[in-house]
């Protein structure tokens, strides 16, 4: 009768940005060759790690806030449908309209139709990972609508026709010199040009962005945003930001369209007291971000006359279905896990292929798309656990990665490695045979030099391409035991 009873509904292919063109190892190899990228990332992540650690350490009840932050999200996920229905009731009661989107295509269609109905050809946008995930800008462009990113980093990415590489700072892979060059080259092409003699001083770059976007804000009639939180009990939406571009978009236009993943709902107003302490400190390493906007439906005489909330599934309900993976939906997109990850720090965000990079991306992206479409991401980690330590909602990313690895392996079908492991397992269950096999392995000593084998024949050469194989000992442990202790 219905589709949902069969396979879980994953994020569809061919739209949005959850899958890369290359598997992670190949993309990572490319990224590692880019010395500029590695130096930009190394400097930026070191800065933010130190800031985060300082402002987290000064909070005496951080552990308590973290436990509450995790539990509130678990409570939401345990009864998500009820919370969404409550949210919808409240938003509607306060003059907003609510739309439901099964996937990226449906969300894009809804937003495109809403913008078309206003007759506008230009919309301003607040930074939103969700609209990146679904490829909204591309869908709007196909409909002849220009979407202008207003967050500084998103502006840099859009002007350079680039892709975001970090959840919080999508242009983290660019340094100030590159940003100056992009502004000089591209701003004039789409609007107010960069000031002549623009330097690479970050103050001047921020000023250039202000001048470039000012007229756009003052004349925009439609804005599109994401949401950090939505309160079910009251219908209140919250957007957390720094620059004021969010406030411009949320306040000045006549029509506001907010696209939000269904997992962003929290039960009560009081719950925000937890997240408004956890998020800024984990994210930008500030005690509080400069601006947080909160609105409930439509406020007569203050802000947009029309408010639309689009609730997006796009693989989230499928993620919810896995008890071992659903905690990834607790994520509040702070990006602390990216900043501490030794893998992310070296390869950057593009190598992950998804808008959600780093440790959280490695667990979230394969669940939204199904592990089959992102089979290499669960392996893009050393399992060091730094991500779990800093996560403000205590997502056990390492354990989840191991779980997803087992799913990938189980789904991958027969492979020589699995056949070999099955053979070893069969032999190891038979002690006498195992003893013989170990003795036989000593034959390998004939092929080694200085205690190691440098090169094995194919297909085993895959192992020795990057490492030596130590020689088996002249005497096996079992033989040594029998010789020194008598019977086994």
């Amino acid at each position, binding site marked *: 009768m219905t589709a949902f009873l069969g396979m879980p509904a994953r994020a569809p292919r061919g739209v949005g940005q959850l899958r890369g063109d290359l598997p992670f190892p190949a993309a990572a190899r490319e990224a590692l060759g880019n010395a500029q990228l590695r130096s930009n990332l190394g400097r930026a992540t070191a800065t933010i790690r130190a800031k985060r650690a300082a402002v987290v350490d000064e909070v005496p009840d951080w552990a308590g806030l973290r436990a509450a932050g995790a539990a509130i999200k678990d409570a939401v996920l*345990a009864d998500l449908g009820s919370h969404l229905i409550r949210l919808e009731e409240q938003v509607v009661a306060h003059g907003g309209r609510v739309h439901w989107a099964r996937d990226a295509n449906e969300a894009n269609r809804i937003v495109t139709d809403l913008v078309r109905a206003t007759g506008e050809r230009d919309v301003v946008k607040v930074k939103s990972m969700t609209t990146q995930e679904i490829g909204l800008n591309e869908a709007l462009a196909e409909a002849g609508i220009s979407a202008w990113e207003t967050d500084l980093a998103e502006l840099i990415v859009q002007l350079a026709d680039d892709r975001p590489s970090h959840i919080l700072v999508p242009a983290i892979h660019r340094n100030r010199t590159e940003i100056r060059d992009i502004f000089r080259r591209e701003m004039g092409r789409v609007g107010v040009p960069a000031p002549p003699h623009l330097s690479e001083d970050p*103050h001047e770059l921020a000023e250039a962005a202000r001048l470039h976007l000012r007229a756009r804000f003052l004349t925009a009639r439609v804005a599109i945003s994401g949401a950090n939180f939505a309160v079910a009990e009251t219908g*209140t939406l919250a957007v957390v930001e720094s620059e004021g571009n969010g406030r411009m978009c949320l306040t*000045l236009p006549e029509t506001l369209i907010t696209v939000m993943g269904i997992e962003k709902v929290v039960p009560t107003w009081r719950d925000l*007291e937890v997240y408004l302490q956890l998020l800024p400190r984990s994210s930008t390493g500030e*005690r509080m971000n400069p601006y947080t906007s909160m*609105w409930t439906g439509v406020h007569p005489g203050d802000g947009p006359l029309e408010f639309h909330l689009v609730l997006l599934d796009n693989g989230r309900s499928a993620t919810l279905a896995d008890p071992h993976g659903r905690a990834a939906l607790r994520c509040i997109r702070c990006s602390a896990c990216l900043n501490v990850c030794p893998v992310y720090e070296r390869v950057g965000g593009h190598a992950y292929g998804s808008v959600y990079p780093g440790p959280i991306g490695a667990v979230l992206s394969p669940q939204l798309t199904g592990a089959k479409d992102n089979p290499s991401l669960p392996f893009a980690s050393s399992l060091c656990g730094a991500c779990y330590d800093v996560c403000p909602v205590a997502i056990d990313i390492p354990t989840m990665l191991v779980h997803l690895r087992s799913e990938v392996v189980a789904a991958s079908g027969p492979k020589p490695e699995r056949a070999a492991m099955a053979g070893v397992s069969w032999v190891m269950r038979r002690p006498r045979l195992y003893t013989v096999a170990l003795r036989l392995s000593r034959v390998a000593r004939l092929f080694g030099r200085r205690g190691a084998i440098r090169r094995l024949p194919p297909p085993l050469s895959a192992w020795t391409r990057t490492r030596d194989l130590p020689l088996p000992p002249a005497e096996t442990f079992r033989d040594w035991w029998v010789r020194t202790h008598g019977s086994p």
Partner: protein
Amino acid sequence: MNAREEILARIAAAVPRPVQVEIPRDYRAAGGEGRGSADVLALLEDRLVDYRATVHRVGPDDVHSRITAVLTGAGIGTVVLPAGFPAPWSPTAVRVVADEPALTPGALAGLDGVLTTCRIAVAETGTIVLDGGQGQGRRALSLVPDFHLVVVRAEQVVASVPDAVAELDPVRAMTWISGPSATSDIELQRVEGVHGPRRLHVLLVFP
């Protein structure tokens, strides 16, 4: 089956038996002490200065004169004053504009500054909350002009975020302001001054 029904059905299939999850509130809750105390005010000032806001401490009898002095000292020629701003505090020697009828965004951009009161302030995080009440105006007023002077009375300053959340009415349009507009988007270094007011001045009124 429409999208709403289908998503709700998917959720129901994903978690067939909704369970009640206990939420441990093992953190400093609302009701903390120190509202308006010298310590809390000193903390708020420290946080605001750290954000590169400018703080002026003033006694209750000097509010009017200090407001005028701060505005003229900052080179503010015209300032927009929201409805309900206390009349005795209204500045002199500065052109005052009302938001009646509502000014267009373009007109707001032509003004030098805005002068408002606030709803509540949080010391620990250096946050000032505006909720559109008397003297605070609609959200655009404290956003578009490049200079914002906000008056905070001592008894409005609470210690923590939970203290503020407990008092605020969520269905009002709110802006939480923690320092002037800023960005960390270039090499993750904080730079003050992007789209919101680049200069934030806070007048702390002591009893």
